């Protein structure tokens, strides 16, 4: 039975991309695969939002990109985290934890 796919919260995609890229230089395809694998198939990023997000993050200077050879010998664009991006990721992570904690508290009280 296929697992139900969840929509990504607005603004979370940027954080997820930064987090995946933190692990090391990776191309767009790799990012979408890893998000799917690590979330155990719950999260699936549409290419239509992934690539514009990547280019936006690159433009803001949070990601650095360079062309390199992929494992199949083809030219691919690899993204890696910049120092500015690392700072941004830390901020977004702490914001996320605060938000998730707050939502969790409310859900517990309401039960």
């Amino acid at each position, binding site marked *: 039975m296929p697992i139900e796919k969840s929509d990504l919260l607005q603004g979370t995609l940027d954080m997820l991309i930064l987090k995946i890229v933190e692990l090391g230089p990776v*191309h767009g*395809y790799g990012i979408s695969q890893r998000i799917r694998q690590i979330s155990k198939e719950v999260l699936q990023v549409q*290419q*239509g939002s992934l*690539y*514009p997000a990547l280019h936006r993050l690159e433009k803001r200077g949070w990601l650095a990109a360079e062309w390199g050879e992929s494992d*199949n010998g083809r*030219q691919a*664009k690899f993204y890696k985290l910049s120092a500015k991006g690392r700072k941004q990721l830390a901020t977004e992570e702490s914001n996320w934890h605060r938000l998730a904690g707050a939502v969790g508290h409310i859900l517990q009280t309401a039960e």
Partner: protein
Amino acid sequence: MFGWKSLFRKRALDAQLDTELRFHIDKLTSDNIAGGMAPDEARRQAILEFGGREQVMEDLRDVHRVSIIETSLANLKSAFRFIRKSPSFSMTVILTLALGIGANSAVFSALDAILLRPLPFPDGDHLMRLSQYNTRVKSAQTFVAPASSLGTLVGGSFGQRFLLRVIRWDGRALRSRSIFAALISRSADTRATCCARRGKIYGVSDCDDPLLNWNR
């Protein structure tokens, strides 16, 4: 930097975007083949999964287009900051530009009206300007008046000699020469005929009286 790139290297940008997206679709295809699909079906599925590629391309172009606006805004901001920081220098530049542009457009509109735009009636290049000098007065005085009123201006007597300055356009340059002329009444037909032997009669259509060139 991004703005200039996408402005001047739109093609290069498109090629880059295309390569990036094509790589993704090819990876999906090879994954599908590894999963046991036939190559054709694998590619079809990959394209299906990827969705509207042109739409993605357009979205990506949008991301880069926005940056043009942002760079222009940033340039504008720094321009205003510079103007505020050194007002005297900026004023000099602005005044120089304003005067330069103003003078240029003034000269151009004059040239345009005189040389480039034909006059709104036929045979514009045969047009003459006549200025009238009264030779009796020491200081040459210009009368601007229709020839019909010349008689009164030069003292009321027909046949009075006066200096005419004729300026005409001969197709290449403005030529000016002075001639002595006399005003005769149209009614003095005999005299006009007689004097015309010594000169030339300029008939001015909207004047009652023709002008006669006296000593040409």
